[in-house]
């Protein structure tokens, strides 16, 4: 992987590096040859790292003041908002930070889908990424329970009840998850414990995600393999770091806009009502980033079927690298797939929208159509289009974007096979 052996200049540096090659790692990270044509859709990896660190730092401070008890949690959040110095700022960064985290991760995932970053030889990066995404959803769900408002309580009730759909042992599993016979204080306690644990698991997976990335190197908008280092690459520092910093700052402006001017717009007003097991809210809705899956869940009239379909919607992504049969990575050169990609984007947005609406009438119809398309896209469209599609000519390298006559998929295949 390393291009040339790094030797520290100072004696102390050499002594340390011989025992733990941290300086070599640092040199690898700064020199890391990166395709020079990465566009701004590639800046979300850095943005996501920022989001994770922000959530961990603000979360640790919040945990110093929060009380994980059914009778005290709601009051302790108000204590943070009113009495803790800048408590309101820390909490609003944390709660909006979760939304910003998901916004960034969705862009990151769709970028991968558009440019074929999940394809060989990057399947492991993709799968680790999906594991991070799954953990993010678990962490976000449990975090939303902690303020112990109405949506916290009823959201927890709805989601944990999904497990009761499992035949034979479902009820036992649900009781085990709750630590009680309903969502109650023991549930809140364990959710807090897990909510604190998961971000560190994510952090570990992020390290693996980046490690796995640094083996083949970055994909790029053209989607072809490039020689590293070469005319087609730039060192990660300063070229990519400064570009990531610029994109991160733009992202932070939007983030700050939410935190300071509409801190509650992404939350549900019912969560400022203390949890009450005797009063069910008119509409129980999860946070916006889980809505597409909620729509899939509710589109099936059968509970077990809905649960299976909802989990399948995520797990189908794990086999995506093998469902996609196209030899060409980037959708830039795939005129047919490109159209389907945008249909998928619209489909997921629509599912998210109907997930927030009552499951009746036109919304139920849209949810069902959307669910069917979602699965068709991965099971039918991706394999079939991959075989049938006539892709556009592909450049030989990033530096020579001139389309070589009659290159077509055959050349692309040759380029791909060189790895």
């Amino acid at each position, binding site marked *: 992987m390393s291009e040339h052996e790094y030797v520290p200049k100072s004696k102390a540096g050499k002594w340390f590096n011989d025992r733990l090659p941290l300086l070599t790692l640092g040199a690898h990270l700064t020199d890391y040859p990166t395709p020079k*044509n990465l566009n701004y859709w590639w800046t979300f990896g850095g943005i996501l790292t920022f989001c994770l660190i922000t959530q961990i730092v603000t979360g640790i401070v919040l945990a110093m003041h929060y009380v994980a008890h059914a009778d005290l949690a709601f009051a302790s959040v108000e204590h943070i908002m009113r009495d803790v110095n800048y408590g309101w700022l820390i909490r609003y960064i944390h709660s909006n930070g979760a939304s910003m985290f998901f916004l960034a991760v969705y862009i990151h995932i769709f970028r991968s889908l558009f440019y074929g970053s999940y394809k060989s030889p990057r399947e492991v990066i993709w799968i680790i990424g999906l594991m991070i995404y799954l953990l993010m959803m678990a962490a976000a769900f449990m975090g939303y329970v902690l303020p112990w408002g109405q949506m916290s309580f009823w959201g927890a009730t709805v989601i944990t009840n999904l497990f009761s759909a499992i035949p034979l042992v479902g009820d036992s599993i649900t009781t085990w998850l709750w630590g009680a016979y309903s969502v109650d204080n023991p549930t809140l306690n364990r959710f807090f414990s897990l909510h604190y644990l998961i971000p560190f698991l994510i952090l570990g997976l992020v390290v693996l995600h980046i490690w796995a990335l640094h083996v083949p190197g970055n994909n790029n908008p053209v989607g072809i393999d490039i020689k590293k280092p070469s005319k087609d690459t*730039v060192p990660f520092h300063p*070229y990519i770091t400064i570009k990531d910093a610029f994109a991160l700052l733009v992202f932070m402006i939007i983030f*700050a*806009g939410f935190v*300071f001017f509409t801190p509650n717009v992404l939350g549900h007003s019912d969560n400022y009502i203390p949890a009450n097991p005797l009063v069910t809210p008119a509409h129980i809705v999860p946070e916006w980033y889980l809505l597409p899956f909620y729509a899939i869940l509710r589109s099936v009239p059968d509970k077990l079927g809905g649960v299976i379909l909802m989990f399948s919607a995520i797990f189908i992504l794990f086999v995506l690298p093998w469902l996609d049969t196209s030899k060409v990575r980037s959708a830039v050169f795939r005129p047919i797939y490109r159209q389907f990609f*945008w249909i998928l984007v*619209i489909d997921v947005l629509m599912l998210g929208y109907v997930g927030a609406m009552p499951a009746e009438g036109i919304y139920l119809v849209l949810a069902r159509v959307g669910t069917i398309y979602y699965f068709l896209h991965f099971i039918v469209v991706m394999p079939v289009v991959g075989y049938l599609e006539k892709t556009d000519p592909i450049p030989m390298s990033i530096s020579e974007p001139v389309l070589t006559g009659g290159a077509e998929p055959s050349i692309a295949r040759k380029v791909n096979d060189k790895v």
Partner: protein
Amino acid sequence: MTKSNIKLLVLSFLLLILLRPLQSAEMADPIKVNWSFKGLTGTFDRASLQRGFQVYKEVCASCHSMQYLSYRNLGEPGGPEFSEQEVKAIAASFEIEDGPDSQGEMFTRPGKPSDKFKSPYPNVQAATAANGGAYPPDMSVLVKARKGGANYIYSVLVGYEDPPPGVNLDDGVYYNKYMAGNKIKMPNNLMDGLVEYADGTESTVDQMAKDVTTFLAWAAEPELEERHRTGVKVIIYLILLTILVYLSMKKIWSRIDTEV
């Protein structure tokens, strides 16, 4: 990301938004009030907050608690900003239960600024029982806990009407066009001239509703003014930094033949 694709995206969203009115709407949309605390630099109207506290104290507080507020909050910056003497006097006008003392007995004493607002009922059950089975919600975060926020609270306060023909209401249930299902168990407590404002403002129903809603908006978000102020500074700082980083990026990338 071609133009036609973006068009398609926008179109499908418009379609979804157009579908929205198909939802059954039983209650009227809240009245839109031009609150002084709206907008990026919005602040509370100090006089209105003080009047609103008076309305709360003299009207609402007999049923609604505000358990997360302390009397000291009334004197803090960004709030009604009563003077230290006034805050002490307000707190002292309440008898607060304290204890146990060295004999193990509970006792009452005049309130201090550090005390939480005294609740009208000892617990939720007592409050529910005393109000015909409807718990008067704690108002500390009420504005954040209702869709529509301040506009909604104000609308409900001025939204009492005689029920339209054909609508029969049980005893202790009132008609309110902004309430979900148009039924509310809180009677219309505001009438012109109900409180005598210390600053001489005429206490019309509309005035009192606006004042008390302003007060509740502050109670729910006591940090609002500081948040707005800090936010403006943070965003200006970020924009300047972004410009500097952008220029640095352009400079650094000028060595490469690729555009950023």
